[in-house]
């Protein structure tokens, strides 16, 4: 299974990478929204883990909107992982098409369960 992490914090990326790699998932990361979109279009991951506060032209919400607007990857589950915990941001993420929203610090086991549940539901990976 291919997992793309769009996150500018190197430490968080490494932690998620360790978690996912231990389950045999193939993992790539991108430090900005624009790079994340490039990877998503080219690599077509099964799940995208997306931060909201990203450097560069696009924040996580905009990245999510662009993913949903692309015919090739519009159905890819997008899990937002953000330190922002106010309802307005969560509402925006939901409207942008996010599949799930996790606040930092997140539970690694809960995140794994979420991904495995998505995996079961899609039945394709």
């Amino acid at each position, binding site marked *: 299974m291919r997992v793309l992490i769009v996150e500018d914090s190197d*430490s*968080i990326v490494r932690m998620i990478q360790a978690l996912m790699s231990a389950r045999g998932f193939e993992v790539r990361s991108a430090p900005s929204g624009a790079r994340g979109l490039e990877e998503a279009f080219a690599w077509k991951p099964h799940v995208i883990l997306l931060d909201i506060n990203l450097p560069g032209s696009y924040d996580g919400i905009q990245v999510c909107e662009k993913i949903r607007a692309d015919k090739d990857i519009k159905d890819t589950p997008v899990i937002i992982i953000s330190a922002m915990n106010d309802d307005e941001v969560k509402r925006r993420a939901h409207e942008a098409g996010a599949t799930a929203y996790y606040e930092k610090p997140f539970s690694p086991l809960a995140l794994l369960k979420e991904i495995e549940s998505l995996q079961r539901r899609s039945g394709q990976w």
Partner: protein
Amino acid sequence: MSKGRLTRHELSWLLTQEAQNAAERLRVGVQFLRTQAPPPPTAGDDPAQGVETSLDALDDVMKMLSNLNQRSVPQAPNLSGARRGRIDVAALLVEVAPDARVSIEPGSGTEVYGDEADLRRMLQVLVGHGSGEGASVTVRREGDDVKVAVALGPDSSPTAETERAWLSRVALRYGGRHELEGGSEVLVFPADGASDRSESAALRKELDEARKQGEVYARELAAVFDRGEEATAVSTVPPAPGVPSEARLMAMTKLCAGIASELRNSLGPAKSELASMRRHEVTEEQLDTIRRRVTHTQEIVTGLAAIGELRADEMETEVDLGDLARSTIKALANMAERDEVKVTLRISPEGVHAQVRRGAKALGVLMRELIVHAIEASPRGSSVDVTVVAPDGNAGARIVIDDAGSSLPASGRRAFLALETHAGAYGRPSGLPIFLAAELAACQGAMLELSDAPLKTSEAGAGGLRVAVTFATT
């Protein structure tokens, strides 16, 4: 054109933009003249005037391109030694525009971090947009920003918009911005040190997030270790995610049919060979040993062949688990008798029919594999207890089989279920029947669990393994 001194590359870029804009306006104007249709809204009020303006702009651009190509554009002397680092914008402004009326408002410093050549050109272009010689320029510090504002002149050059696009682009590159505020044009740069502070703040934030995340990881890991033994006291085999049960069963039946065929081909002749060996100097004891091994292998083949005959699309029918257990025990009576193991059946609650709607043949094979394993694992003179529990409310029907063999430690169950242990490990037979039963259970919407069998008063200390298959209620 402004008085700013841009590099040849930048100037070419600006002129190209201008030429493209002028060409586009011309195209629109010419289209109008050709069709007499109203031009699109972008063409302006008067098409003819639009064409004239565009031609003027093109003239302007062509003249500049011509000048640019006639003379080389050496680096300005004061740029040859341009440096990168902390630059005082106010001091640079006085140097760049000696005729301008520069007003420096007191603050906490007008230094920015950047390339002197870039900043110099930006200031030249900005001042060029002012009201000619003696333009009024203000430099001031506002918080973490250094702002340079110029009062706009009454006339705007044709290239002003393009220059503003360039200013905005370079300002963004420096982490600043370019603004038009009423009658003035403003460049905003992050003050020197401010970016360090924001970078430091970002690093602190990242460190803090990482620390919190690390703590959560550590807590969850510790919790897993804490409940380690409890968590493994019952080992479950849930259906593997992602693969449809029909596909799983189809793969398994093919595998089993193949193995059964292969073993039958090799074991058939071996039995005949054994019969002929009897005439020579082979002891009865040796022969019995070989015969037992062959018989055991034949039982494995029978089980595999039964699985090989299953159909992935087997029709579901009402199956009474009590009846099924009874008939399976009867079919395996010879085996139990040979191994001197007593197999008992109990229905709970007594007299109730424990029915499930599943594939009858698949359940028959599942039951057989469980009981065969229990008999093989139990020592001579011991007993195997088969319990069928009827469904009750949300709890589905269960088959529970307790053998009297060696206990299987919780730490060894995963490897046992994954067929990573060989026959004899932990004093138990091969885990193949349990593996097959677990796969069949998963295909039938049931879950197989391993745990310690309860101690029997008659066989205190014998241990034993409990294999339970629980059927989902839906």
